[in-house]
């Protein structure tokens, strides 16, 4: 391996074959070392600490080892079970709807006759770069029960106002809607780039074979897009399992537990109830769920790539 031959300050004269060889480790660690130290201090250590914490509980001001007690607590905790059900609901409803919408947008954005493509793309991507607090504020204002723009629109259409953030069902719908608002364009932009990698000639070939636009896409183009669709599905699934932002800033997980997610719950348990052991146990269940889903999907992804 040529790059392993590392000679610091080799004099010009003694160049080439008889170069002084130095351990490649020194130079390599010069580059990778700082990051490795930071990862150890601020990632590996807290990760280990939280795993340890999940087996402890605070009794009379000291942490004592309680084995799997915290994990057993989770099984009987209705709030935690609700948070899992909510996540499953979002996975089953929001992710497919969003990927479907993103696909439609991407296909439309990829039409050869469309003008100002970069402009359209920017408009659809904008929600993804919005600061979380801004996003929370604007949706609270839009969805306010009394005089919010959404309800004024319903009123203008002759419909009853809706209690967007305070009724369990509508709060779920609001959260799903705002997650979709924020991430659909982001996924569409990724899918669009995938579509652009498919050659124009394939559209022409399909058209010559007499396929209409719909057949061309379902039969020829979309099958080639499968790896990119899978990538978007994986990242959205992991994002859903870690969902915090929308549910925390819009509804604080409420009303009741209607929009509670595991990570919102862990934040409340850790930083409001200061029950660190229990929070750590919740965190590790989330980690295991993500690991399981990622493993499953990476398998699919691998199979896809071997095709």
């Amino acid at each position, binding site marked *: 391996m040529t790059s392993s031959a590392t000679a610091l300050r080799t004099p010009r004269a003694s160049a080439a074959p008889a170069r002084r060889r130095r351990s490649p480790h020194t130079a390599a660690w010069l580059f990778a070392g700082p990051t490795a130290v930071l990862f150890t201090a601020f990632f590996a250590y807290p990760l280990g600490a939280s795993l340890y914490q999940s087996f402890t509980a605070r009794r009379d001001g000291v942490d004592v080892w309680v084995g799997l007690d915290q994990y057993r607590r989770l099984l009987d905790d209705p709030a935690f079970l609700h948070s899992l059900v909510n996540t499953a609901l979002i996975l089953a409803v929001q992710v497919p709807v969003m990927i479907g919408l993103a696909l439609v947008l991407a296909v439309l954005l990829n039409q050869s006759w469309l003008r100002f493509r970069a402009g359209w793309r920017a408009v659809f991507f904008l929600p993804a770069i919005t600061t979380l607090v*801004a996003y929370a504020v604007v949706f609270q204002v839009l969805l306010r029960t009394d005089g919010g723009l959404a309800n004024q629109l319903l009123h203008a259409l002759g419909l009853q106002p809706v209690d967007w953030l305070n009724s369990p069902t509508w709060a779920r719908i609001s959260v799903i809607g705002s997650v979709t608002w924020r991430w659909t364009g982001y996924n569409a*932009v990724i899918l669009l780039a995938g579509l652009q990698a498919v050659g124009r000639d394939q559209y022409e070939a399909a058209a010559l074979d007499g396929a209409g636009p719909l057949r061309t896409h379902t039969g020829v183009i979309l099958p080639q897009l499968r790896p990119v669709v899978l990538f978007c599905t994986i990242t959205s699934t992991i994002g859903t399992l870690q969902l915090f932002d929308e549910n925390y800033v819009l509804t604080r997980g409420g009303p009741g537990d209607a929009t509670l997610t595991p990570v919102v719950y862990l934040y409340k348990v*850790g930083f409001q109830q200061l029950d660190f052991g229990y929070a750590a146990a919740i965190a590790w269940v989330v980690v295991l769920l993500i690991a399981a889903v990622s493993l499953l999907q990476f398998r699919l992804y691998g199979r896809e790539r071997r095709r």
Partner: protein
Amino acid sequence: MSSTPVRPQRPRRPLPARLGRAAALAVLTLGAVLSLIPFAWMLLASTHSSAELFHSPPPFLPGGRLLRNLAHLQDSIGFGRVLLNSLGIAAVHTLLSSLLSAMCGYGLAKYRFRGRGLLLGAVLATLMIPLQVLLVPLFQMMANLGWIDSYQAVILPFLANSFGVLLMRQSFLDFPDELLESARIDGSGELRTFYQVVLPCVRPQLGTLVILTFMGQWNSFIWPLLMLNTQDKYTVPVALNTLTGLSHVDYSGLMLGSFLATLPLMVLFLLFQRQFVAGLLGGALKG
């Protein structure tokens, strides 16, 4: 001769094709309107008083209270100072983090050394761990160090950026070894080779990383919220958040602050759209 060539009469498209295009444009327009309404509302709201926002019918034209809302925002949270804090933190964090990512990516791509597999594995693992798992132990660590309410507590724990390391490693993998060899033969040290020969070649990827890192830090909320607790140290999102908890919420001020908080990223995105998209695709197409 006139410079306009004689164009053949374009044949009229068949009706179904024209209808298809009209439908496609209608769907795109609807999507764009839904996408933009919250931004338009933010901008409009910042020119009205809070009470006017919830009037029926709502205001559709800009009002005259923009400057008054701005002055109020400055009075209530010291918006200018807070903006400078955000800029400073994001700039320092971006500079250090991008440099460290590039160095680490280079080390992983171009050297074989003991611990390389372990480091790469650790980098990949961080991508799967939600930030919230680390929050409690990191918080305790910062408290033990006495770093609560300091800028280094906001910046330091997240300098090592696994996405950045992977992105840079990917771009260095394609860098020809022969060029490195010839730089070494010319007597250039490892660090000098890196800064003078290698880094300039990956400027596009580095640009992508800088932009995405800046955006991430600028938008970062939970960690600064936990770390900072005096107003003159707050970042924009943390300062705006203090306004949401009051009994009488100043919605106009909040909407103006929100718009101003989003504006720098909008400008960045419009200027560097291509790099943004390239960064998103880091994993999607190469994977």
